[in-house]
């Protein structure tokens, strides 16, 4: 091969260095232009069928990812806002519940107190009534007892003395006997 190249040099000496090179490597305008055209056709076809669509697809994908990320950010923000709103609502509901429970507790305590007072009052009334009834019964029994006692004392006195007692005697004996018993 090298010998061929060297052999080609003297033959082309008259054409100058560029001419020698052109001849050795068979560089001609027609072949050069043909290759230029081939290259440009490939470049244009690749631009149309490969680089164009692929770059458009990559750009579309990039914009979709960016839009997705933007959407995600918005959703996260909405979620945070929603969580904050929910937390506020829960806190408010809690406060309301606590207030209601306290009110209910207070109401229940008041009601219990009221009912207890009513019960106490009622019990006191019952007690007073019972005491009054008991007193009345005792008075009644006491008077009945006094009367019977007087009658027994008078009868006994009458039988012991053998005289008929007047009403005044009976009254006096009764009072004496009662005074002795009660004294």
């Amino acid at each position: 091969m090298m010998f061929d190249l060297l052999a080609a040099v003297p033959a082309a000496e008259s054409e100058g260095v560029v001419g020698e090179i052109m001849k050795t490597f068979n560089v001609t305008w027609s072949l050069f232009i043909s290759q230029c055209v081939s290259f440009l056709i490939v470049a244009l076809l690749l631009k149309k069928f490969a680089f164009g669509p692929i770059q458009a697809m990559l750009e579309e994908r990039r914009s979709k990812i960016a839009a997705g990320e933007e959407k995600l950010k918005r959703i996260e923000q909405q979620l945070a806002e929603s969580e904050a709103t929910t937390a506020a609502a829960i806190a408010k509901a809690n406060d309301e519940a606590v207030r209601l429970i306290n009110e209910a507790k207070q109401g229940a305590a008041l009601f219990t107190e009221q009912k207890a007072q009513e019960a106490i009052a009622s019990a006191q009334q019952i007690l007073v009534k019972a005491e009054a009834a008991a007193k009345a019964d005792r008075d009644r029994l006491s008077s009945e007892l006094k009367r019977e006692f007087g009658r027994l004392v008078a009868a006994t006195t009458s039988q012991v003395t053998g005289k008929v007692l007047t009403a005044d005697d009976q009254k006096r004996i009764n009072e004496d006997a009662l005074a002795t018993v009660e004294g």
Partner: protein
Amino acid sequence: MRFFLSTSIVWLFGLISAFAGSETHDHLPANAEEILRLGSFVVTNSMLMVWIVAAFIIIVAQLATRKMTTVPSGLQNFVEWMVESLYNFLEGILGKQLVKRTFWFFGTIFILILFTNWFGLIPGVGTFGWQLSGPGVDPHDTFRPFLRGGNADLNMTAAMAFTFALLWFYWAVTENGLKGFFAHIFAPKGKFSGIMSLMMLVVFGFVGVLEVISILFRPVALSFRLYGNIFAGENILENMMLMGGKYLAWLPPLPFYFLELLVGLIQALVFMLLTAVFLKLICDHGDHDEESEHSH
């Protein structure tokens, strides 16, 4: 498992390639050869190779983008990964604004060079062809292959490099303005006063002239770098194959297949990186600090 598979494939490639080329092939010429002539229009074996690679790339691109879904899978996933990785990589070099304008070019450069290099390693490329006979036939070159590595043709590498040179000029002027473009090359960088500014004008003027020469040589260097690497690789494979004799022709080139796979990728990367850096250098407004301040 993957390593085993890839190793087996490369061994198989070498074996088939060696058998295909063991009987008929003589040597690899420095230039692409004519395989078809339609009037004055000549079709060379490297042109055919580039067309096949281009068709393959376009078909894959079409298949991958025909029914695109938001959640990618299969071929769409692979192509998207490739394009996105390339885009991000170039964005790191060129910046957000410039990469939007120029990605179609740098993406094509990388993909086309990479697949052209790798397709050149497929068995049959450079080994399937026909024998020439008759008067006027070079006795050193009697074999004409149907296909030849696309970048083992200076016309192809020069086509990409000079197309870049034109686009570089267009992008540089539209980004900087014509005045800014020339100022970028010739104007002194930094603030000087008095006699120092005059001296710097002379110094930077001279540097600008050197820069112009460098700019003019860039496409030439780009062309020859890619061509040289790929042509050298094909030569190595070819010569290794010839070293093995009739029955062991498949053995010597095998390690070099791995090397060439790597070279194919590296050269595609180097071409793309260099072109991207050349563009960045001329479009650089020196606003990195401002950008980084904004980013912080």
